[in-house]
């Protein structure tokens, strides 16, 4: 019954991950329009979310041990995100195909 969940990740790896996360935090601030004026148009939100996802991936893979853990946990993590995407996609599909009746506000 030996899963890899008792795998000990070396201290140095943790430290590298932290440094990576801090670097990405600086990066996401630097490319943000309100901070630096850097403007990639419609891609702004996309870039911000991409960086956030890389950060979240690092936390999940190393700090939450998913990389070495029972793959069932990874599957659960991905399934919950998948169904979140389903909630978003169908609600979104309805709203963009609707005749928009924006509030008069």
């Amino acid at each position, binding site marked *: 019954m030996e899963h890899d969940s008792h795998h000990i990740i070396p201290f140095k790896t943790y430290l590298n991950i932290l440094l990576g996360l801090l670097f990405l935090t600086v990066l996401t601030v630097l490319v943000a329009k309100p901070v630096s004026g850097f403007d990639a148009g419609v891609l702004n939100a996309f870039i911000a979310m991409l960086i956030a996802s890389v950060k979240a991936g690092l936390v999940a893979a190393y700090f939450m041990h998913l990389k070495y853990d029972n793959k*069932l946990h990874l599957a659960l993590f991905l*399934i*919950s995100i998948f*169904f979140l995407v*389903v*909630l978003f996609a*169908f*609600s979104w*599909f*309805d*709203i963009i*195909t*609707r*005749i928009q009746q924006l*509030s008069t*506000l």
Partner: protein
Amino acid sequence: MSASHAEGKNYLNWEKGLWSWLTTFDHKRIGILYMITVMVFFAVGGTFAMLIRTELFSAGPNIMDANQYNQSMTFHGAIMVFMVIIPGIPAFLGNFFLPMHLGAKDVAFPRINLISWYCLIVGAAITLVSLIYNGADTGWTFYTPYSIETDNGTSWVVFGAFVMGFSSILTGLNFIVTTHKLRAPGMTFFNMPLFVWALYSTAVLQVLATPVLGITLLLLLAERTMGVGIFDPALGGDPVLFQHFFWFYSHPAVYIMILPAMGVVSELITAFSRKVIFGYKAIAFSSVGIAVVSFFVWGHHMFTSGQSEAAGILFSFITMLVGVPTAIKTFNWVATLYKGSIRFDSPLLFALGFLFLFTIGGVTGIMLATIGLNIHFHDTYFVVAHFHYVMVGGTLMAIMGGIYYWLPKMFGRMYNEFWARITFVLIFIGFNVTFFPQFILGAMGMPRRYFDYLPAFESLNKISTFGAWTIGVGFVIALFVIVIAIFKGEKASDNPWGAKTLEWTTASPPPHENFLETPVVTGGPYEFR
């Protein structure tokens, strides 16, 4: 093992006193706590149903005014959905039998199991608080913007449902972990009884869908207290988004209600036809299939509520797909009965009742999924009849069958077979007399949820109300049959039905840790020769 088991101690007399029940971590005792709770709630919700039908006996006000009618309807819906049908099979029968079916000593987290029962009780108590503030009149769906504006105790019902959501989540979480980690040696996934497959699929829904209800209800509370404006069109919000969020939970919730019932029926049919179930894997995977598909169909509740046509067509199409795994199950059950050595005991009668009624419910479901027909049927009594055929004709039939089937195991006593059959006849006939006319009423255009109707609908409504009273009598007799069996019934043997799943290999009632020795499983669950 300690000596106590040798003296014939079982889970019922293992510890004594009310306090030992209220602080128990034993899944069987928690199952019994749920049984009592659900039966009490069912009596309350059923009383509201009787009041509603009595009010609708003839046109015009009979026994209540419009406001009282709206309240009765809301409480009937909220109680039956959140406090009876959702916890009904998983938390009561599932709690008792899932670990036994797996050959485990308990669920994975006994403490959390007890907490989940308290969540249900606390949630129900919070719901009751609403009565101090003039109750609630939104229906169990809490549609915005009305639920934001209405000036009464709706917030308490919403908050109560939020707390009860935790009960559902924790039960589901427990079942998934138990199924993965606590199976007895040799109990592979394909050696598990189909009831476990059904409960597992249900648990996945409970864990993945209920949190969205949680956030939706929290947002609604914020809406009512702070006017956050997310669902309020007057503040730039979108009330249809509320319906998306609500039905993202509440459509899977419909399967939280029906999947465990299908699991019970699988057990009943194979046990009483004394035959290996036909298409084990097909039934098992169709449970999972129904669970997955149920997440993609919620928009069929919203065909007339301002959802875009494109989204409506998409949802309509996907909804039809639900018919596939459902039909697979039904055909397999019928095939199991074919050439079986059938014993027409009351559990099987209820299972057959399930097959008959659920099929009608399912087929009318396909009619409602058709977007063009739905425009006509939407919010009419056709819909009311449809979902009662599924919820009552499906789930309640299975609960009744399950109670009779497992009563000898749970309490070590037999019930009175004659009177049990009487309850089946009354409930089955009463049910059809109540709800079949409602299909016709709906097709004629009688809208649901109103406390009054046109005189043209009166004769069919009278028939429907007579049917409701018959069901009422049936359930009262059933209550007596069950209570008398528990306290005065004949002693039951360990396996009165000759069934093959693991729970029948241990004593009736089972000992504290279910099995004196951890069972070792060598084959499938239904090894009738």
